[in-house]
């Protein structure tokens, strides 16, 4: 497999994996390792003085990332304005010692749809402050173009709303974005439900897939992580091999010359 390019950092795996929603920290760790991913997403939240569980999770995530020689990708989940997202990004950069940021600015609570206006504002500010922005956005071509024009080398349109598992709602939009932004690193982020969804995105020529719920909420997250790794590899290899052109009519696969019994009377 070729490597995934995140702002010049070459990665062996094209799967980026979330660290939330697993039944236990042990399952999370084993699923991350089974996925082969080298990029693990995480977040920052308030924690009251009585709570202590967060530190254990943080320790597990650090162990996983060290074990795969990987990278942390903090997100700005929960932010609803550019100002909030910029502040959280700066806090993440200090705490996690990385200038990578998965930029989320939510505009609608019902389907967690990104706010394109606030997203562009936050992106511009963060790029100017030296961040390497990985924006989570809708599958809108013009929005993706604007993000690319601002300087985003990586763009992450959704497949469908976060956590729905509905797969690629609008393949046409995603294909068009791939076609029109051939030099961007494009990662489908959110909404993936099945390994075949991830495979479909990779067959379109996407550079990677970021997901969480589809693995964490599977009956067997570790087995599902392995399934996604194989599906993404299969999709990538299929794309690289060149998919045949779809045709409108049937064409026999078996040669028709010297067909026995052909045109004999009453033949079916």
């Amino acid at each position, binding site marked *: 497999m070729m490597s995934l390019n995140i702002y010049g950092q070459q990665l062996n795996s094209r799967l980026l994996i979330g660290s939330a929603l697993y039944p236990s920290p042990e399952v999370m760790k084993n699923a991350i390792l089974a996925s082969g991913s080298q990029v693990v997403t995480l977040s920052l939240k308030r924690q009251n003085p009585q709570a202590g569980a967060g530190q254990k999770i*943080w320790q597990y995530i650090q162990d996983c990332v060290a074990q795969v020689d990987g990278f942390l990708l903090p997100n700005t989940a929960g932010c609803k304005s550019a100002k909030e997202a910029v502040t959280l990004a700066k806090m993440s950069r200090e705490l996690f010692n990385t200038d990578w940021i998965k930029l989320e600015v939510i505009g609608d609570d019902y389907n967690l749809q990104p706010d394109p206006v606030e997203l562009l504002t936050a992106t511009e500010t963060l790029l100017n402050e030296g961040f390497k922005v990985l924006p989570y956005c809708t599958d809108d071509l013009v929005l993706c173009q604007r993000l690319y024009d601002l300087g985003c080398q990586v763009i992450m349109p959704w497949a469908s709303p976060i956590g729905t598992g509905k797969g690629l709602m609008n393949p046409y939009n995603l294909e068009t974005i791939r076609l029109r932004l051939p030099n961007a690193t494009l990662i489908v982020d959110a909404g993936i439900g099945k390994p075949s969804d991830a495979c479909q995105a990779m067959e379109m020529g996407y550079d990677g897939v970021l997901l969480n719920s589809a693995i964490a909420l599977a009956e067997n997250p570790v087995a599902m992580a392995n399934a996604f790794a194989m599906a993404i590899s299969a999709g990538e290899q299929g794309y690289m091999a060149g998919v045949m052109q779809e045709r409108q009519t049937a064409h026999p696969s078996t040669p028709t010359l010297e067909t026995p019994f052909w045109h004999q009377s009453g033949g079916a």
Partner: protein
Amino acid sequence: MKIYINGESIDIDTQATITQALTRYLTSEQLSMSFAIACNGDFVEKSLYAHTLLNENDSIDVLFPIQGG
């Protein structure tokens, strides 16, 4: 004077710094953990905690790493 940390009201001395407020609010275990700070919605670098004086009704967010998607 009254300030807020993670939405909770606490009383601290006037002219208190962020470091002093954190010592009042966080457990010793939490103080040893990784966290980052915003004051009134703006990021504050760790190196400035000891020098940043708080004002009445200031609102501090203390954020810790958690799992995320």
